[in-house]
């Protein structure tokens, strides 16, 4: 850690007041010696929630998210965020997040944890049953419409552009016409 005066000047320039005279240098060397440092990065991104499109700064360390904040240089929000945007860190880290599918049967008071296989089968069965029961090939004028108006989709704010594209593609293939996203709400 020892830097001689000449090297230190080269590193710090003359603006480190006192360094030329050695004032406080020993104390600083003693303080810096055992200190561990940690690097982090800042990356800008856009809030995924609503249509305003606020700018965010995301802090990461070793690829892991450590902090999020509004981007003060972003022309839309100038560093400010709504309560939802301000808590966006919890998209990644939230101990209360539900990580398993939950099911509450018709008339039941309690939720119960179910397996992904069971939940996905249930969704598939109900989507198919509803679609089959309500599918309309032609409207009253005899025009081909191939749609169902009995199922709607809303979301999700946490999906990225590509995921949203795939989701709406799947939904349209089923014949849904009521497809909405958080960003337009």
């Amino acid at each position, binding site marked *: *850690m020892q*830097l001689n*005066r*000449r*090297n*230190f*000047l*080269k*590193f*710090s*320039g*003359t*603006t*480190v*007041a*006192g*360094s*030329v*005279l*050695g*004032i*406080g*240098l*020993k*104390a*600083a*060397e*003693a*303080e*810096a010696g055992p*200190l*561990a*440092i*940690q*690097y*982090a*990065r*800042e*990356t*800008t991104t856009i809030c995924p929630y609503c249509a305003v499109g606020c700018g965010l*700064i995301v802090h990461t360390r070793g690829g892991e998210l450590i902090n999020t*904040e*509004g*981007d*003060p*240089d972003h022309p839309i929000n*100038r*560093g*400010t965020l709504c309560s939802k945007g301000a808590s966006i860190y919890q998209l990644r880290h939230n101990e209360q997040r539900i990580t398993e599918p939950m099911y509450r049967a018709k008339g039941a008071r309690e939720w119960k944890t179910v397996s992904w296989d069971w939940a996905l089968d249930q969704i598939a069965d109900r989507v198919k049953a509803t679609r089959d029961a309500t599918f309309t090939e032609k409207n009253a004028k005899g025009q081909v419409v191939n749609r169902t108006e009995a199922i709607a989709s809303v979301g999700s704010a946490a999906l990225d552009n590509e995921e949203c594209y795939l989701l709406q593609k799947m939904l349209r293939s089923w014949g849904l016409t009521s497809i909405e996203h958080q960003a337009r709400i």
Partner: protein
Amino acid sequence: MLEKRLQRLQELATAKPALNEVCRFYTCLYRLFDNAVPFLQVEVDDEMAEPRQKQGFPLLSGDMLTFDPAAAQIFFAALLQVMHEHGQQGQDELQALQTALQAGNLNLTELLRAVFERNREPISQAAEATGAQPALLEYCLTTALGAALQRCRAEGLKTQVQNWDQGYCPLCGGLPAIAELSGEEGQKRLQCSLCNSNWSFHRLTCTHCGNSDHDSLAYFTAEGEPGCRVDICRKCSGYLKVVDSRERGEGLPLEIEDVATLHLDLLAAKEGFSRGKKETPGA
């Protein structure tokens, strides 16, 4: 301003006894700044100021500065005395400078203007003639010029320019010494190392080289040093200390925070970073 500075120095000395020595020095230095007879007059052509600044030139240029040689000499002598009393190194050189000053061999008007204009030739020549290291003489002159400019600011000198997005001071052209993340929004504000003006700057841009590539910008924090970080650029190997006012509190005199975080400068140097490409003669 003096009270704020002295209060913060007192707080630091109490919180960190190891900083006693440096706090004592700066207490004397800032008292000297406050008591000094003004030795710089600035005449700004307001009509020319705006077009100049729109082109990226700072408000002041060397021809706007008028120094009072007698008052400058008195101040410089007192400054050298404070440095001599508190310095741990360079005592002989300070003595040589004091002798040269008393003998009338230091043309302060020329040297102070040279510092302002970053013209290092006269400084190197004067240092060589007196037997002092150019870096030491430049430091003394920079400190004196900084005191004079800070006094001018205290007496109303200011820049009107909005949206200044350069990495140097809009008022005097000095380089930033330290930055602050201010307000709830965390706006980055740079503070000039010379006149202590501050101005807004982009969060994710290197102040030294203008690099805004996120992949080559980063920051590091030191263990047990909350609210303070060091922004680094891997393209130019520059660094800048940044105080987060949301954690440390608003309104801190950043020049004191700069002094109190000398260990971060050492850590940055150890990591291979410097305060930009500014060369120091003799270093």
